[in-house]
């Protein structure tokens, strides 16, 4: 009986590994086909990361139309440059990197329009760029979970773009430090210090708004 149990356990381990490997090789197959111009393969690849990519764009741009524009632009860029994808990083990490870059480009373009909803502060040692009263009214009685979360999100908007983006990637989307370093194209050391500084800054902002 023991022998059979061991066999079943080892079979399960092998099965899990097989599933992982087949998922990985399936993705590679899709990438290969998509590079050769297969439309369905490209759409399958995109579909796998579309939801998260949209939410990242939404949290960066705070506007559904802009987020959809950024998503479409990102996917077109991915379609054009798929042949340059060399497999050094995971495919979805590469996709999120392009989405983040597209969003940052749009923010830079929109910055000249002075969108009053995207006001932020710089670090304590730097001078504040612009300060506008919180449109969410910061109600003291917002203690239930959802309201508390919304309050945190509104304070997140007051951080500078670099601090905001690293909180979005780490705390909202749960990317690892390594993944963030790939998405933002910076070192792990930079990621570590930016995450810590951004969280401390967000806490200060919350305290100031309370």
């Amino acid at each position, binding site marked *: 009986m023991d022998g059979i149990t061991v066999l079943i356990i080892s079979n399960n381990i092998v099965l899990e590994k097989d599933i992982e490997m087949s998922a990985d090789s399936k993705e590679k197959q899709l990438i290969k086909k998509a590079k050769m111009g297969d439309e369905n393969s490209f759409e399958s690849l995109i579909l796998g990361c579309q*939801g998260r990519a949209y939410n990242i764009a939404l949290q960066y741009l705070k506007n559904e139309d802009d987020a959809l524009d950024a998503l479409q632009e990102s996917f*077109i860029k991915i379609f054009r*440059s798929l*042949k340059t*994808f060399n497999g050094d990083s995971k495919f979805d990490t590469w996709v999120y990197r392009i989405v983040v870059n597209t969003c940052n480009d749009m923010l830079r373009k929109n910055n000249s329009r002075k969108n009053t909803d995207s006001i932020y502060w710089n670090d304590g040692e730097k001078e504040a760029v612009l300060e506008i009263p919180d449109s969410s009214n910061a109600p003291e009685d917002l203690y239930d979970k959802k309201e508390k*979360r919304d309050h*945190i999100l509104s304070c997140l908007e007051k951080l500078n773009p670099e601090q905001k983006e690293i909180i979005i990637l780490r*705390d909202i989307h749960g990317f690892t430090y390594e993944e963030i370093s790939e998405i933002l*194209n910076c070192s792990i050391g930079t990621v570590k210090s930016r995450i810590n500084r951004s969280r401390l800054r*967000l806490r200060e902002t919350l305290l100031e708004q309370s």
Partner: protein
Amino acid sequence: MKCDKTREMLSLYIDKMLDDNLKKEIEEHISTCNLCKKEYDDIMEIVTHLNEVEMVSVPKSFEHRLKNALQHERSKISDSKIIAISDKKKNKLRMLTSIAAIFAVGLISVGLYQDIIGGVTDQLDGTAQLAQDQVMQERVMNNETESDLYNSKLYKSNLDEAIDEKQKFEIKLDVADDVQSSDALKPRMSIYGYTDDNSEPGSTKALVPENYVDNPSVDGDSDGYSKDYSTMMTSEEFSRALTIQAIERNVAAVQFYKGLIEDNLRDFNYEILESDFVQAGECRFRIYIFNSKEGYVFNEEIIAIGKDGEIEFIYTNEFMGL
């Protein structure tokens, strides 16, 4: 551990990125420092709330919108491919035309060269024949013996003239090896042996004109021919012209393959480090790829081989899709 150090490592502690020793030190500090404990609790609460932010689903209309955009993009790419192919065809046609033109020039030059040689040889043969005819006439008229005929001044001067011309022409063609040509010429000339007026009767000597090695065009009698030869293309000039044509053809091929490389690597920032023309119509290029225009850094060197109007990339990563 002090408060500053704890503050620095708070996020790494929350994200479980510290080794056991540091983790223990922070736990000990937090348990004794109220300020750091408060900071830790606040950040933990923020992180927990942010972890629970709900994801919004993509509007259904986006699927249709993306399909249209991708379709548009595909048609743009296929259009640009058609343009690239027609450019390629144009380039090929241009190269073929150049090669044909060079070939035609070569043929004409060779034809012209052979015409001139043929003409001169005919003229020289004609002169020699004339001299022989004259001698034969004299012989008939004067009933002289054959040995007397060979000693006659007329024969000598006519034959001399003819040989001089022929000799000069051959020297023109073999400028490089004077000594060899003169050695080779001597036995050939010796068949035209004659008895000099000033020498003893009956003695013969090889006919080697005094001026043929040093300066073959000085002879006043052959001025007419000398002028004609000077306008002709010598073998040296001819080979130089062929070399120039070959260089021009190589330069044209390198340019053509550079165009193909530009087509293929239009999504990359790159630099052609070196281009060589290898034998058998092959061009070899060393190319350094810095990054893709999308921002991916490669910093890799690749080799491109241009042959038969096609370009082939080697030493590339399969994922670069080249």
